[in-house]
């Protein structure tokens, strides 16, 4: 029963703010929204503690949702260990971002609407992770997509933003199609959508079973859409059109990780399908590298972070693909901390700069925004994998797991983390060091954000700094908390790696990171090199900054043909053939009626004439025969 309360709180928050809207006192709006998420967080913590102290799982079925013939689905919730971790991330980070939004969005005329949407998002996200079957997950899955759409297009007066919102929804829909087909196949195979039943039955299947391979591949198509993997990733960078807290909550910390959650949730299936798992890993790896290289040449502070998110999601999928499910969740958690932090910091910067997002017009902000600067630095250190910061442990674990899977993958992935450090420090130096390059007006008004914004930053910074301790590597001789916690539901491959390898890995990464930090500082701060303006870009730089021209390619491959096909179909078949035929029949009847009309002239003479003719004809007929 208590499970039901978790999603209900944010739903009430949404209803209150959505209904009363502007008639609510402005001060209250933010509190209603934030506290509703905090309440859910409280329950999540309570459940988490119960699980820690040995409870197995919680289950609550509200009612039979759909039942028709042999098709039956419950409206049921379940909290097991995996769900508990997700709940804590969603409600915990969610709460911080809600509080931050009070400061960030306060001046917006549609502030209540914004908060309502945010609550609605949390509601659907909770539905997604709480559902005890695939249909519930799908319901949440679609719901978060809707909220993402609404929030990307929140400033709807700008047509480009609407375009971005549409793109996000439609790309996700393409993924959903795969997901849906996967669901049908699941029901056909197992006769149930319930996670436990499906996983229980699946474990009797042999490895390499073709149906399970098909199911897992189709489900992963859904994950490609939601978690922005190649080829369905292009919506995520565009989604940055939404307000920054949205980018932090939806497009970094929670919604986009739904795909990873789904794969881990279905880990029994993926473990039975080595081909699918390998596919997941390869797509993840390709995305990780591809997006990282694009991130090198972006000049919009949020775009850099967006490509970085795409890339980091790739890391999670690599982990899931090589069977290290708890590692994938580990990185999901730490990433939620530091990426939410980085986005919120960028929001603080943008706030201070009056909406400026281009790092070529920033510089030297360290002086003016001390807290933002410090917290951003922590985030950067964490994502780059500097030892003891959160990202170090999780990324290290992914690398170690990949190493035992395939050396080539490991090398490429390690190279990817080098790029990550480069683009992150490029961003850091260009934003906070050097001369201020903005306008005079901006300089005069540069200010640190209010407490309501900086406190969430500080909390997240602490989490980004120490969050990694939930999963210490073996060489520290401490238990790996997360692995042990998740073992009953989704442990996957053990985290045993040779100790020598661990030491080498840690040592190498320290050296490489030191070199990167030093050289990027030298390049951007000491020499003061600035990224060239868009027009000056040449060669590879241009290809990178234009994102490999994928958007243009997709427009040519999908968008145009879709319009052309529907245009041809409509003009030729609908208007040309079908409508013409119907009109033809209509005219035919009219013509016939017109012709026959002459039979009814209304003149007695002609009737008489016809009568006589008819009479004669009958007579002749009778006589002849």
């Amino acid at each position, binding site marked *: 029963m208590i499970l039901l309360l978790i999603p209900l709180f944010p739903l009430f928050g949404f209803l209150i703010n959505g209904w009363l809207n502007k008639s609510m006192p402005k001060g209250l709006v933010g509190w209603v929204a934030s506290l509703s998420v905090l309440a859910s967080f409280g329950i999540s913590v309570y459940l988490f503690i119960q699980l820690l102290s040995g409870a197995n799982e919680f289950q609550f079925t509200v009612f039979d949702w759909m039942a028709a013939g042999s*098709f039956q689905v419950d409206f049921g919730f379940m909290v097991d260990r995996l769900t508990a971790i997700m709940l804590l991330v969603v409600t915990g980070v969610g709460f911080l971002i809600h509080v931050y939004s009070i400061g960030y969005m306060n001046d917006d005329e549609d502030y209540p609407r914004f908060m309502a949407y945010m609550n609605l998002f949390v509601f659907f996200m909770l539905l997604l992770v709480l559902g005890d079957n695939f249909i519930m997950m799908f319901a949440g899955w679609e719901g978060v997509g809707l909220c993402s759409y609404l929030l990307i297009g929140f400033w709807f007066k700008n047509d480009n933003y609407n375009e971005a919102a549409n793109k996000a929804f439609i790309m996700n829909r393409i993924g959903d199609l795969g997901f849906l*087909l996967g669901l049908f196949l699941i029901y056909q195979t197992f006769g149930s959508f319930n996670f436990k039943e499906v996983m229980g039955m699946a474990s009797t299947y042999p490895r390499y079973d073709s149906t399970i391979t098909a199911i897992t591949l189709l489900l992963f198509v859904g994950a490609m859409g939601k978690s922005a993997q190649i080829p369905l990733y292009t919506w995520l960078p565009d989604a940055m059109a939404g307000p920054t807290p949205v980018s932090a909550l939806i497009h970094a910390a929670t919604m986009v990780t739904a795909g990873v959650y789904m794969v881990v949730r279905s880990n029994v299936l993926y473990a039975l399908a080595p081909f699918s798992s390998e596919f997941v890993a390869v797509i993840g790896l390709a995305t990780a590298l591809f997006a990282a290289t694009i991130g090198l040449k972006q000049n919009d502070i949020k775009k850099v972070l967006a490509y970085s998110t795409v890339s980091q999601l790739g890391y999670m999928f690599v982990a899931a693909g090589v069977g290290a499910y708890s590692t994938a969740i580990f990185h999901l958690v730490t990433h939620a901390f530091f990426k939410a932090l980085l986005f919120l910091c960028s929001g603080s910067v943008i706030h201070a700069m009056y909406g400026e997002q281009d790092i070529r017009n920033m510089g030297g902000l360290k002086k003016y925004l001390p807290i933002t600067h410090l917290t951003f630095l922590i985030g950067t250190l964490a994502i780059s994998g500097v030892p003891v910061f959160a990202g170090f442990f999780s990324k290290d674990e992914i690398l170690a797991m990949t190493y035992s899977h395939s050396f080539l993958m490991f090398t490429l992935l390690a190279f990817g983390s080098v790029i990550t450090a480069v683009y992150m420090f490029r961003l850091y130096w260009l934003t906070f060091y050097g001369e201020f390059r903005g306008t005079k007006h901006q300089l005069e008004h540069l200010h640190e954000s209010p407490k309501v914004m900086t406190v969430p930053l500080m909390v997240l910074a602490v989490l980004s700094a120490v969050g990694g301790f939930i999963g210490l590597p073996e060489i520290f001789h401490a238990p790996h908390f997360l692995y042990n916690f998740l073992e009953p539901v989704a442990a996957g491959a053990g985290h045993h790696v040779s100790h020598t390898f661990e030491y080498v890995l840690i040592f190498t990464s320290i050296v490489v990171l030191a070199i990167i930090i030093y050289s990027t500082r030298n390049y951007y701060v000491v020499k003061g090199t600035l990224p060239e303006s868009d027009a000056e870009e040449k060669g590879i730089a241009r290809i990178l900054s234009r994102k490999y021209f994928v958007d243009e390619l997709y427009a040519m491959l999908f968008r145009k043909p879709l319009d052309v096909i529907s245009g041809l179909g409509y003009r030729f078949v609908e208007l040309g053939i079908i409508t013409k035929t119907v009109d033809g029949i209509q005219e035919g009847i009219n013509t016939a009626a017109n012709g026959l009309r002459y039979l009814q002239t209304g003149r007695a003479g002609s009737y008489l004439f016809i009568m006589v003719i008819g009479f004669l004809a009958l007579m002749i007929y009778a006589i002849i025969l």
Partner: protein
Amino acid sequence: MNLTLLLIIPLLTAVGVLFCRNAQQVRWLSLAGAAVQFILVMALLFAFYAARSNGNTDAFLFSERCMWFAPLNIQFITGADGISVSMLLLTAAVVLAGVLVSWKEETMAKEFFFLLHLLAFGAYGFFISLDVFTLFFFLEIAVIPKYLLIGIWGSGRKEYSANKLALMLMGGSALVLIGMLGMYYQSGANTFDLIRLSEVHIPYATQLQFFPLLFLGFGVFTAIFPFHTWVPDGHSAAPTAGSMFLAGISMKLGGYGCLRVATYLMPDAAAYYAPYIIGLATIAIIYGAFATLMQTDLKYINAYSSVSHCGFVLLGIGMLNQTAITGAVMQMVSHGLMTALFFAVIGMIYQRTHTRMVRQMGGLLKAMPFIMTVFFIAGLTSLGLPGFSGFVAEMTVLMGAWQNPKTMYRIATILACASIVVTAVYILRATGQVAMGPLKQHDEPLNDARWYEKLAAFILIAGIVAIGVAPFWLNDLITPGAKIIMQKIVSLSR
């Protein structure tokens, strides 16, 4: 519960309206009539639940019969199973909402509301008839007022559209009539009594001969491809309430007829022709969706999308299994509510902006938030968002469809499923254009919804959400009805 009340009330209202002295009286009387109908149907719903839970397992409840025309053995038989009750619910909701949105109809108000109630009368009669002849009689009653509604109160190419609609629907009726007579004589039962007909086994050859006529005839009403072109023209030319009735109720007459008359009485032929039905349904789903992409007029958008959504009804019927048939009926109810809501809101927009072209609109969310929220809800139902009825209904149809392992059916199901992407594209394009972007200049200030418009929207949205969130009450209604149809299909195919 006497079902004949459902005929008397609309008829009384219709006649009463003619004696009103001014528009004010007309609309209040209409509202009262529609409200009484709605309450009656709700009472019927609960009476039905009560009877079922008391263990009444008759196929049709509240049945009554009297001889109408003895020489031809035509009877007046009424009765309702869960499927009819759900259709009656839909009808009552749409009628009530339709009356509310027509609140400000001033031109020939008397005649307008008279025709509306006459339409309602026809629809109620259709759904409670258990005699094929009276069923046909009510079907015809539901056609003629539409012609007048479009011809007199319509807009745009109204004469052309009214003609087209009447021609195609009459064509469909003609097919039904032939099929009906064929059944009467060739079944050997010499009766139109639906229950009696369902007990005799109509010879296989007869079934093969007359099933297509009946199915296509009713199919025209539910926009079976390629007989769908009356839908866009008819809907767009009709006045708001007319479009709501057309799409919300009339198109369901067809689906109900296909199921209750054609499939139920001639299951062998249904099994034989199933591949063709599914083929046409799939074409309708995909073709309708693509055609919608090309539309720039809001009414045309909804009309073509109706073609696509009604394809799911036919797909469900064609799959001939219990899940799919239940889904098909749910889709009828869901689509009826959703499309009525859509047309209602389009009417509200048109009244304020005096245009239906999406390119001439923009940023309306700012100017009329309530109306635009309703518009969004209708759109989201259409694109199958969980929580709204469209998802539940289409999911059930698709789940049923997937149970059919034949390759061709599989392909049809996957294609139907793929339509969700195209649907998202056209819905988002339309809502984006209309609601978002910069606000365009309009001659008059744009007011948000009035109380009657809000009430109409609430009634329909309540239905959509009730089905979307907790569809079990509807399932409980439909399942026994679908089971009876299924039993016939299964037992006869053995």
